[in-house]
C-alpha cells in the first residue's frame, strides 16, 4: 500500500503506541492523587510537558494538553469569545479555515458575535492588508490557520502576528495542525497568543494534542470540574495520551531536520509531473507546504478516482476527510476562486517523511494511467 492521505491522519509510530501502552499499564494512577503512585504519574506528565516546551521553545506553563485539533480550536476561539465578550464581539477569520474553526465561528454568530470571513487569492493565501483593514475597535480575536489542510497554502502568520502585536486588545489564534513538524513556526515574540496542535497528524494517536496559550492569556474553559490543566481543561488527564503525544512531537522534530529537503524534492516532483497530465488542474501553489498537493480532474468524480487508485494499492483522498462525507464542492477551492467544476473535483495527495521517491514515481505513473483510462471510458 502506498499511503498518501497523511493530512487526514498519519500512521502512528510504533514506539508512540508502545509508549501509550506502557504508560496506560504502568502509570495508571491519577496524577492528582496524593499518594506516591499519583506523585510519580504527575512527575511523568510534568516531564512530558517540559520536553514539549523545550521542543517548541516555549514555557511549560503555556501548554494545555487537549484531545486534538478540534478541541484546541474550540477552546481557543470560544475561550476568548466568552471571556472577552465585554471587550468586543468581533472576530476575524478566513474562508478557508478547517471546519473546527469555521463552524465554531458560525456558532458564535448565533450568540451575537460578528465574524469577518476574509477571502483568499488564487494561491489560497489571505491578504495581510485585508487583515489589517478588517480590525475594528470591537475585534477581540483573529483566527487564521498556518497551513491549509486541503491545498497546503501557507498563510503569512509572521506578518499577521506583527499586526496583532500592534493591537494589544485582541488575541491571535493560529491553527497549526497541518503545519506542525512541516513548516517552521516560532511561537514566542511572534504576536501569537494561541496555537493549536494535534497528535494524530504527526504519527501520534487520535485523541491527543495540545494548545499553546501564551503566558498572561486568560480563557473561559469549555470543561468545568476538577481544575486540571490550570483550570482550563477539567477532567482527569489523559497521561498516556499526553506522554505519547510528546514522544511523537520529539520524533517529528528530529525527522524534520533531515527530512525537510526530501519532502520538498518529492513535492516538486509531483508538481512537475502532475501538471503535465492532460486534463489535470493543479490547485496547490509551488510555494505551499511541502506535504500537500491538491489537483482537480474536471469531469471525473473524485470518488471514482479514489476507488480506482485504491484498487491499485494507492490511498489518496478528496478535500478534507472531515467534510468529505458531504460530496459537495470544496469550500476552500471555491474560496480560492476555482470554478465550480474544478472545486467539486479536488483530490488531495498528502505526504509524510516516510513517503519515498519510489512511491511517488509509482503514484505518478499509476495516476496518469488511471486518469487516461477513466477518461477513455467516459468518452
Amino acid at each position: 500500500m502506498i499511503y498518501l492521505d497523511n493530512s487526514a491522519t498519519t500512521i502512528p509510530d510504533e514506539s508512540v503506541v508502545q509508549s501509550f501502552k506502557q504508560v496506560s499499564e504502568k502509570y495508571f494512577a491519577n496524577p492528582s492523587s496524593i499518594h506516591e503512585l499519583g506523585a510519580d504519574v504527575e512527575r511523568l506528565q510534568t516531564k512530558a510537558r517540559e520536553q514539549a516546551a523545550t521542543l517548541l521553545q516555549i514555557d511549560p506553563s503555556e501548554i494545555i494538553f487537549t484531545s486534538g485539533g478540534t478541541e484546541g480550536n474550540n477552546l481557543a476561539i470560544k475561550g476568548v469569545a466568552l471571556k472577552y465578550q465585554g471587550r468586543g464581539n468581533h472576530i476575524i477569520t478566513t474562508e478557508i479555515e478547517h471546519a473546527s474553526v469555521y463552524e465554531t465561528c458560525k456558532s458564535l454568530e448565533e450568540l451575537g458575535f460578528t465574524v469577518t470571513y476574509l477571502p483568499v487569492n488564487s494561491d489560497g493565501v489571505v491578504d495581510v492588508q485585508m487583515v489589517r483593514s478588517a480590525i475594528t475597535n470591537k475585534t477581540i480575536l483573529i483566527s487564521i490557520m498556518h497551513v491549509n489542510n486541503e491545498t497546503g497554502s501557507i498563510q503569512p502568520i509572521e506578518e499577521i502576528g506583527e499586526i496583532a502585536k500592534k493591537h494589544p486588545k485582541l488575541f491571535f489564534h493560529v491553527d497549526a495542525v497541518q503545519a506542525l513538524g512541516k513548516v517552521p513556526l516560532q511561537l514566542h515574540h511572534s504576536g501569537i497568543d494561541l496555537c493549536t496542535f494535534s497528535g494524530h497528524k504527526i504519527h501520534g494517536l487520535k485523541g491527543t494534542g495540545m494548545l499553546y496559550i501564551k503566558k498572561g492569556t486568560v480563557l473561559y474553559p469549555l470543561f468545568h470540574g476538577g481544575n486540571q490543566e490550570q483550570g482550563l481543561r477539567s477532567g482527569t488527564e489523559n497521561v498516556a495520551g499526553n506522554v505519547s503525544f510528546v514522544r511523537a512531537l520529539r520524533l517529528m522534530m528530529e525527522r524534520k531536520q533531515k527530512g525537510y529537503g526530501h519532502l520538498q524534492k518529492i513535492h516538486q516532483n509531483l508538481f512537475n509531473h502532475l501538471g503535465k497530465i492532460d486534463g489535470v488542474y493543479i490547485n496547490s501553489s509551488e510555494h505551499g507546504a511541502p506535504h500537500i498537493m491538491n489537483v482537480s480532474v474536471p469531469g471525473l468524480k473524485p470518488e471514482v478516482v479514489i476507488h480506482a487508485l485504491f484498487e491499485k494499492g494507492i490511498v489518496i483522498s478528496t478535500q478534507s476527510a472531515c467534510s468529505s462525507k458531504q460530496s459537495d464542492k470544496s469550500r476552500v477551492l471555491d474560496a480560492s476562486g476555482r470554478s465550480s467544476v474544478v472545486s467539486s473535483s479536488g483530490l488531495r495527495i498528502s505526504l509524510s517523511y516516510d513517503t519515498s521517491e519510489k512511491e511517488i514515481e509509482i503514484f505518478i505513473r499509476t495516476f496518469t494511467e488511471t486518469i487516461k483510462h477513466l477518461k477513455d471510458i467516459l468518452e
Partner: protein
Amino acid sequence: MHYDHILIRYGELALKGKNKNQFITQLQRNIQQALKHYPDIRVKRSQGRMFIELNGQGPEPIMKQCKKVFGIYSLSLALKVENEESSIKEGALFALTGSPNAKTFKVSVRRVNKGFPIRSQEMNRILGAHLLKNTSIYTVNVHEPDVEIKVEIREKATYIMSTVVRGAGGLPVGTGGKSLLLLSGGIDSPVAGYLMMKRGVQLEMVHFHSPPFTSERAKQKVLDLTKTLTEFGGSINVHLIPFTTLQQEIFKSMPERYAMTIMRRVMLTISEKICHEKNILSLTTGESLGQVASQTLASMNAINEVTNLPVLRPLVALDKEEIITHSKRIGTYDISIRPYEDCCTIFVPKSPATNPKREIIHELEKKVDFTPFMNEAIAKKETIKIVHNVQSDHFDELL
C-alpha cells in the same frame, strides 16, 4: 546574509589581575555547559571577548540560554565578514536595515587590527555615507541613535553588530568558592542561592525532610527548585537529610517556646558537618530580618552560635515583596508556592520565642544529647546530583 555569531562581553572580569585567565576559562566552560544541547556551535575566546559561532543554529535559543550565564556583561548578534571595505559596507547595510523600528543610526568602528589600511574615523565616515546613500528612511544621530552599528575590525575578520542585550552580570559560577544552601522549599532560600551564584559561588544544597509528615512531592519540589537554579550554572548536589526522628525528639523533650530555635541549631550543626565533609567553607540561608520569629536578630544570634563558618544571608535586608519579585524573575516562584508541607511547617509552635537567650538554650541542651540522632541522620543522608539540561530517569524511554 544572516547573523552567524554571538559576541559576548564580560565587563567586570577584565579588571581582575592574576585570576583573569582562570575566570575566563570558567566562563567559557559555563557557556559551553549551558549550550551543550547545541552540538553545532563553538565557543571561542579572542582578545577580551568571546564569540559563539552559530554554524547554522538559530540565534534565539542561544541568546536565551546565554542571558542566564553569570559573568556575561552584554551580548550582541554579530555578522562576520571579510576584512574588505566592500564586505564591511554590505554587512553594515544588512545590520541597519534589519533593525526593527529604527529611524536614526550611528556607526562606531573599532580597529583592533591596526594592519587594516583605513583608520577608524575614516571608516566611520565611509560607512555612514554608504548607509545614507543606499537607504532613504534613516538619518544619522551620533548622540542618541535608535541603533548603533558597531563594527569591530579584528585580526582575521570584521564583526558587525547592531543590538546590545544586557547579560546577567555577576561573576562566573565556580570562581567564588562553595557554599552550602539550606533549602526549605519556600520562596526565600532559592533566591538566596541565586544571589550567591551571581557572585560566582558554586552551591550545594541541604534539605531536611520528615516523611511521612512530608511527602515525596515536597522532596520533588526541592529537586525542581535546584534544577531551576542549575540553569544559572552547572550542576548542584542536593543532600537530603531524614529529619523525622530528630524533629520528634526535639519537640518531645524541649519546651515549646524554644523547640524551634533548638531545631534550627540542630539543622545548622548538621549542615556544618556536611560542609566539613565536602570541604565547603560557608553556609547560605534565605533569612530576611524580622520576617518570622526565627529571623529576629536575637534568634539569629542564638542559632548562629553553633557554627564558626560564615553564614551568608543575602536576603537579610530585603522586603518580602522584593524577594518575590526576584523569585518570579528567576522562575522559582511557581515551584515554591506548591502547597506541600515541609519540615518547618508541620511542627509549628503556637508562640515561639522571638527573643531566645543563649544561656537558657545551653541549660535546655544539657538535658538531652542530640548528637547520636544527628549522626544517624547524617549517616542516612541521600545525595542527588542535579546537572543542567540532563534529566535522565526511568521516564526517558517513554518520551
